[in-house]
């Protein structure tokens, strides 16, 4: 990974990575205290993907997200306190408590929402790309999905349509090796999901998804291409979730050595070491960032915990616009 970005940008990216990690740790902590209704799918371990991609986007660009979507929201600029409130089912959440952990959206920052149907976000992102093309702006859409989604028909349909119409969409596959408990190699014969891009006549690239700068560079090229009207790109980011699929999953299907190997490749640890080696940040500055983020997430949790639950009759509102 090369450091040819300005200090502010690099520090900003480091801060986002940390924000996501500490946010997810807080969610887990609140979950353990029985304060989170339902289930959670944590993004810890995959932060470099969301941050590497979203650091290339403007506020008026769009993203679509998945059931494992907290990190995407934070990376695109949504407020942690309102994300946390939504996860807790509170009135002050982004969706007034109607969506929860798997359905967070913040249209004010171009976050078009998380769908919990695997693969369903791809056609929607493609449609947002179509809308951009029709309105002749230079915005782009980044569409996050997992390795499991790449086996859905919507993957084929959406990428093909984006390709033939040359739509400004960056399809970002977060290959975290397992679709729930199913290892990728059991459900596809190819090594790189990015290779599927060839079938649609578009460029595809596989990158180290735990290297935020590698993701950044790949996304930068794809975003520039999309803004120039040169169509979509498929980026496969090879990464790993630190925890199981969801809250009930101890992830026993993953060999210990494999987990350890990936933990050694932790994207935040790697980026921090890089920033210190290259003297972009000093130990003291690193500690300051961490302190700030911890305080911010604590504040977010406090806000969410203190917020009221929605009035029950709210359930009947917003069915129609």
């Amino acid at each position, binding site marked *: 990974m090369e450091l040819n970005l300005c200090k502010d940008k690099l520090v900003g990216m480091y801060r986002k990575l940390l924000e996501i990690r500490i946010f997810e740790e807080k969610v887990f902590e609140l979950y353990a205290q029985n304060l989170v209704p339902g289930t959670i799918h944590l993004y810890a371990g995959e932060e470099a993907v969301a941050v590497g991609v979203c650091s290339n986007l403007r506020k008026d660009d*769009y993203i*679509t997200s998945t059931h494992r979507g907290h990190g995407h929201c934070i990376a695109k600029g949504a407020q942690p306190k309102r994300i946390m409130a939504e996860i807790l089912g509170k009135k002050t*959440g*982004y*969706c*007034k*408590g*109607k*969506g929860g952990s798997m*359905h967070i*959206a*913040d*249209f004010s920052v171009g976050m*078009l*929402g998380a*769908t919990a*149907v695997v693969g*369903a976000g*791809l*056609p*929607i*992102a*493609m*449609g*947002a*790309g*179509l*809308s*951009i093309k*029709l*309105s002749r702006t230079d915005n782009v*859409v980044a569409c996050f999905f997992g390795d499991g989604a790449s086996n859905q*028909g*919507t993957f084929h*349909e*959406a990428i*093909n*349509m984006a390709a*033939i119409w040359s739509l400004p969409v960056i399809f970002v596959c977060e290959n975290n090796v397992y679709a729930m408990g199913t290892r990728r190699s059991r459900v596809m014969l190819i090594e790189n999901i990015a290779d599927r891009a060839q079938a649609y006549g578009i460029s595809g690239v596989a990158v180290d998804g735990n290297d935020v700068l590698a993701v950044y560079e790949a996304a930068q090229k794809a975003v520039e291409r999309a803004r120039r009207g040169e169509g979509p790109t498929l980026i496969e980011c090879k990464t790993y979730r630190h925890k199981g699929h969801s809250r009930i999953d101890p992830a026993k299907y993953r060999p210990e050595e494999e987990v350890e190997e990936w933990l050694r490749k932790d994207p935040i640890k790697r980026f921090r070491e890089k920033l210190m080696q290259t003297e972009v940040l000093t130990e003291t500055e690193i500690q300051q960032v961490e302190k700030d983020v911890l305080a911010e997430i604590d504040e977010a949790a406090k806000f969410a915990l203190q917020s009221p639950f929605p009035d029950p009759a709210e359930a009947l*509102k*917003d*069915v*129609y*616009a």
Partner: protein
Amino acid sequence: MRKITYKEALREALREEMLRDRTVFLLGEDIGRYWGGAFKVTKGLAEEFGDERVRDTPISESAIIGAAVGAAITGTRPVAEIMFGDLTSLAMDQIANQAAKIHYMFGGQAKVPLVIRTPFGAGVNIAAHHSQSLEAWFMHVPGLHVCVPSTPYDAKGLLKTSIRGNNPVFFCEHKLLYPMEGEVPEEEYMIPFGVADIKKKGSDVTIVATSYMVHKAIEAARELEAESINVEVLDPRTLVPLDRQTIISSVKKTGRLVVVSEGCKTAGVTAEIAAIVAEEAIDYLDAPIKRVAEPDTPIPFSPTLEQYVIPNEKSIMNAVKEII
């Protein structure tokens, strides 16, 4: 007043709305200049508005609706055509889980102004994959509006309302209605959702019928006049929202109800309407409610088999006579 066909009325609505609002665009399989839609509803529109706004798509129903959803939540007003209603099953996640739920699930942040047009209905010998009437599926999905226009006038007015609204609309056309002529004024008009139309006034029995069955009900009513049975034919025009009040008022007046709709009887359109009347107006009924619908079978191919399962004026007359 001038007369135009149902197909022309739909095309006029699309054309007028595309002229009025640049964000309205059409997408679907073979809707463009090379074919003009399987039933020719969009014929000539690509020539007038260009291939960008009358967009031919690959055969990818899920992505057609997904594209419409993504475009709708980012500032445009797409009208998607699914060539046959039966094929909406291929796009069911995008319709039922995405389009219908986005406004609610995201706490009202996003509007989803999209229209899905599709033809339903049996009677043209194209068998089990091109003949169903699946309106009831979509009535069961909160967040969707469901239109079932039976005349050129209703088709045009409801389609214009659908395009200008801010919710996803499932717009059901009927293959046998496309060539049917009816009066449509030259001047602009819109038809609000949830307002039933009394197609024929009467006092002895209420028939609530939908889509093509409205015409069968009117034919049955005319024949029953000869036997001094005075039938009121009521067309809800939209199933969601449903004009419960007009249906209940009519039943209070006549004391008898027959509900007619294509589609299987079990858990179908007729079941819902019958249940509403049973729940809210049972004291006004002088006889049991009768339902006329298709039996619970796939639509068969052979003309003798197909005609056997589709409700007709005879089966409607029989139902009326059973409760008179």
